[in-house]
């Protein structure tokens, strides 16, 4: 049975202005289920910040601060230091989009993780700069069409694979790094709980499909997230002190099933099939499967 914190009062209230079916909005609710009230949230400029805090309507029932697009990790470093000096124990949690985290915020997140601040950084990954109208970020997958990496007569869409941010932060010595998905909400909540209770800088990248940006029906958000995992294009795993543990295993589906359902990949099917690009995307999924060991092995018949 689902329980809500604070005696029935949601810490992330309704009335926010996210699109119907918004993945990140669900992620925000789940994060606060994990943290409870004793948290200070540091936000980046982006969808979640904009849809939740048009003055004076805030959806946040916990202390929350937004400064700039690229500096939540630095702001969080300062908050953590102040709390330490004041002898307070609120958890400091950054909640930032993929653009903020993988691109413009690299400087601050690298510094914060290198210095080892006791913070948790959660990147909600909808794979593009969604708030500004669906532009390409370092998290945009290979072959996706965005407004700044559009499919065209001489372009297949985004020509680069996703930046491997979990590996980068594990390399900074982060004690706990995880990927998660809103398709598995309880798993995500548990990972947030683990991260906030692990001393040092911890990172979670949570996959939060965006119906508006990816081009699918609002009710399909969780189904899309699950399909990403089932195809191997998204892997749910944990890294403890840099070593991968516990990757979620799947009976893998071909990537085409995932790509065919989203307008951002429509150019791979219409006006004509781009089997070459689909094959390249399949190769990415295959590499993920190999790297993380996600394929459920069929039983070998004994001879």
């Amino acid at each position, binding site marked *: *049975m*689902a329980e*809500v914190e604070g005696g*029935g009062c*949601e810490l*992330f*209230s*309704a*009335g*926010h*202005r*996210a*699109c*119907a*079916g*918004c*993945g990140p*909005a*669900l992620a925000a*609710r*789940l994060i606060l289920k994990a943290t409870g009230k004793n948290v200070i949230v540091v936000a980046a400029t982006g969808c979640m910040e904009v849809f*939740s*805090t048009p*003055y*004076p*309507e*805030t*959806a*946040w*029932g916990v202390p929350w601060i937004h400064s700039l697009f690229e500096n939540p990790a630095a702001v969080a470093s300062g908050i953590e230091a102040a709390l330490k000096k004041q002898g307070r124990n609120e958890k400091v949690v950054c909640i930032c989009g993929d653009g903020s985290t993988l691109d413009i915020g690299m400087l601050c997140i690298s510094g914060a993780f290198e210095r080892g601040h006791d913070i948790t950084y959660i990147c909600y990954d909808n794979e593009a700069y969604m708030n500004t109208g669906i532009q390409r970020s370092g998290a945009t997958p290979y072959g996706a069409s965005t407004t700044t990496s559009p499919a065209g007569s001489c372009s297949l869409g985004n020509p680069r694979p996703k930046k491997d941010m979990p590996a980068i932060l594990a390399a900074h010595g982060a004690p706990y790094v995880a990927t998660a998905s*809103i398709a598995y*909400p*309880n798993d995500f909540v548990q990972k947030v709980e683990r991260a906030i209770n692990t001393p040092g800088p911890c990172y979670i990248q949570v996959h939060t499909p965006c*119906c508006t940006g990816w081009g699918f*029906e*609002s*009710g*399909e*958000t*969780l*189904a899309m997230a699950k399909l990403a995992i089932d195809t191997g294009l998204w892997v749910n795993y944990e890294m403890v002190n840099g070593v991968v543990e516990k990757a979620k295993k799947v009976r893998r589906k071909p990537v085409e099933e995932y790509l065919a359902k989203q307008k951002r990949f429509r150019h791979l099917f219409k006006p004509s099939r781009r089997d070459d690009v689909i094959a390249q995307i399949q190769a990415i999924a295959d590499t993920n499967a190999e790297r993380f060991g996600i394929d459920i092995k069929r039983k070998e018949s004994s001879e």
Partner: protein
Amino acid sequence: MALRVGCVAAPGRATENKTGAWRVFKPVFEPEKCSRCGMCAMVCPEGCVRETEEGTFEPDLDYCKGCGICAEICPKKSIRMEKEEK
């Protein structure tokens, strides 16, 4: 109401914004099919699915945007989306 220094606000005002007005489709819950798993309440992006006294669930139509995630996720298919008559 006077501005608060620094563009700061206390919690609560978001609920003044009744996002139920956005809806095109509305969810219809069928409690007799409900297995009380609570997934609908867990996955609603608005957090506006609440538990009834019987342990089943119902949407808060003041805020429900009609996205349909609850209907899609329900393992018993006890929620359906209907075009709302205005």
